[in-house]
């Protein structure tokens, strides 16, 4: 994607790039975040929203410029829909961890048959027909822009959308979160380890903070509010997992716990040989 998205329609009045918002397997949380954009009206002044699954019952139009997609791919229908969208849309923006890393839906990828069996028992083939191993959408179609997070940050979405409208290749920060966390001057969770403090009830021995290896960009939102990073933005491109695991072990924490925590959002990358964007 290099060219800016061209305007359509008659030359007499300005026309805006036409956008659709679609959802695959997800909890619609990211779509909900879109409706939380404070400057929504300003943003809508730059695009024409033709279809928004969450907000109206209109049918998917035949033609549009930008497809904003949330959710993981879990069915054959999803694959076909994506392939169809890719032939129409000039630009695909993937939003949220389900779409980008496979997210929580991808947790079911291991032993998928067993999970389906457990839920639908003998009816599985009828009710859950056409299922595929849950995967990020980039497994099936090229993605031009992405907005990470669970859920996404609406402000980040606006920035990415603007880049797409200008035809600017998205800048992908590859480093993990720690630098941003330091910039926010949040005390590190890995320093709550003095055994005496724990014994004295001064500190809790938890602190499996995944910021060490997680894609940056959230501004250390959780950590500054008192929660360790859960890795919702996926694994950073430059993450050094082996060194991070060594650190975890040296801290007296369990490396398997660390990997399990990472799996909540990055099981596809860790177990399915999936490639991070």
């Amino acid at each position: 994607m290099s060219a800016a998205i061209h305007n359509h329609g008659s030359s007499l009045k300005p026309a805006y790039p036409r956008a659709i918002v679609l959802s695959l397997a997800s909890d619609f949380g990211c779509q909900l975040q879109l409706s939380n954009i404070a400057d929504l009206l300003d943003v809508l002044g730059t695009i024409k929203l033709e279809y928004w699954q969450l907000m109206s019952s209109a049918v998917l139009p035949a033609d549009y410029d930008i497809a904003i997609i949330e959710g993981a791919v879990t069915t054959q229908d999803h694959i076909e829909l994506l392939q169809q969208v890719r032939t129409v849309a000039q630009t695909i923006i993937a939003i949220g961890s389900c779409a980008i890393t496979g997210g929580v839906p991808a947790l079911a990828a291991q032993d998928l048959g067993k999970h389906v069996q457990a839920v639908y028992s003998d009816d599985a083939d009828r009710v859950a027909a056409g299922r595929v191993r849950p995967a990020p959408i980039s497994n099936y179609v090229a993605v031009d822009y992405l907005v990470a997070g669970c859920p996404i940050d609406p402000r980040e979405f606006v920035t990415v959308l603007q880049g797409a409208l200008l035809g600017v290749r998205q800048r992908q920060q590859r480093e993990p979160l720690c630098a941003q966390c330091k910039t926010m001057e949040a005390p590190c969770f890995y320093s709550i380890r003095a055994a005496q403090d724990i014994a004295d009830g001064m500190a809790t021995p938890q602190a499996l903070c995944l910021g060490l290896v997680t894609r940056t960009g959230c501004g250390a939102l959780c950590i500054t509010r008192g929660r360790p990073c859960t890795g919702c933005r996926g694994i950073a491109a430059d993450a050094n997992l082996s060194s991070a695991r060594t650190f975890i072990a040296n801290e007296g924490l369990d490396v398997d716990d660390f990997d399990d925590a990472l799996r909540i959002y990055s099981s596809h990358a860790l177990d399915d040989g999936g490639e991070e964007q």
Partner: protein
Amino acid sequence: MTAAHTAKAYRKLGANPYRPWPARITSITQLTATEKLFELRLIDEHVREEFSFTAGQFVELSIFGIGEAPISISSAPSKQGFIELCIRQTGTVTNAIHRMRCGDVVGIRGPFGRGFPFEEMENHDVLLVAGGLGIAPLKSLINHVHDERHAFGKVTILLGARNPAELLFRQEFDMWKHRQDFDLMMTVDQPDDSWDGEVGLVTRLFDRVDIDPDNTYGAICGPPVMYPFVVEEMRKKHLDVDRIYVSVERRMKCGIGMCGHCAVGHQYTCIEGPVFSYWEAINLREAI
């Protein structure tokens, strides 16, 4: 002209060195499929008067909302009131200016860095070698030598490109081939039907180069991989490494020695460079 000159000019104008001067695109020439030559005019008259540069210096080009990129100046320092930038469509900023039209406004900061040591080179022979987009910074020096032809001895210019379609300024240089006061040779790796000249790497042309090593300065611009080979050829002609100048590529973000992005070894490409003598360059870690 050096970084200190520009610093002085900025102080004289009482200006914030991060603030670009608005400049209008006055002409656009499509050179190849991916390169265009942009002629720009600084809009503010005072700024235009203070703006002077030497061949090899660069400016920071701003496309607002997208960002900045360092671009070397291609026009001759003697060209008053306008600067020319030869820009390949490769990153976000360069793609953006490729979509702009005449009359559009961009931002310019600079000129930054140290150019070719033209005062030292004057009254000597010069051997100028460019490969690919390396012609962009070298073109300014070639133009300078052209405009001040009497101040230089023998002038030899060697140009190389992957194929004829990518040979920048080809039409202009085709005309120079017949001139007596320039010894100009061109070569391409992959010839096509339009090409009846030399075929091969630019180093091939050295067979036909005859220089007086005690009276010659060399200048090389091109992809980093080219430098050792061209320098080797120059060394075979007994040219000293401190008389060979190269232009180093880095992502200069601020242009004023603060942001750290363009550091090579212990120097900054945006202050002590981008033109270094080859001796300096091989003594800077990872310079080329």
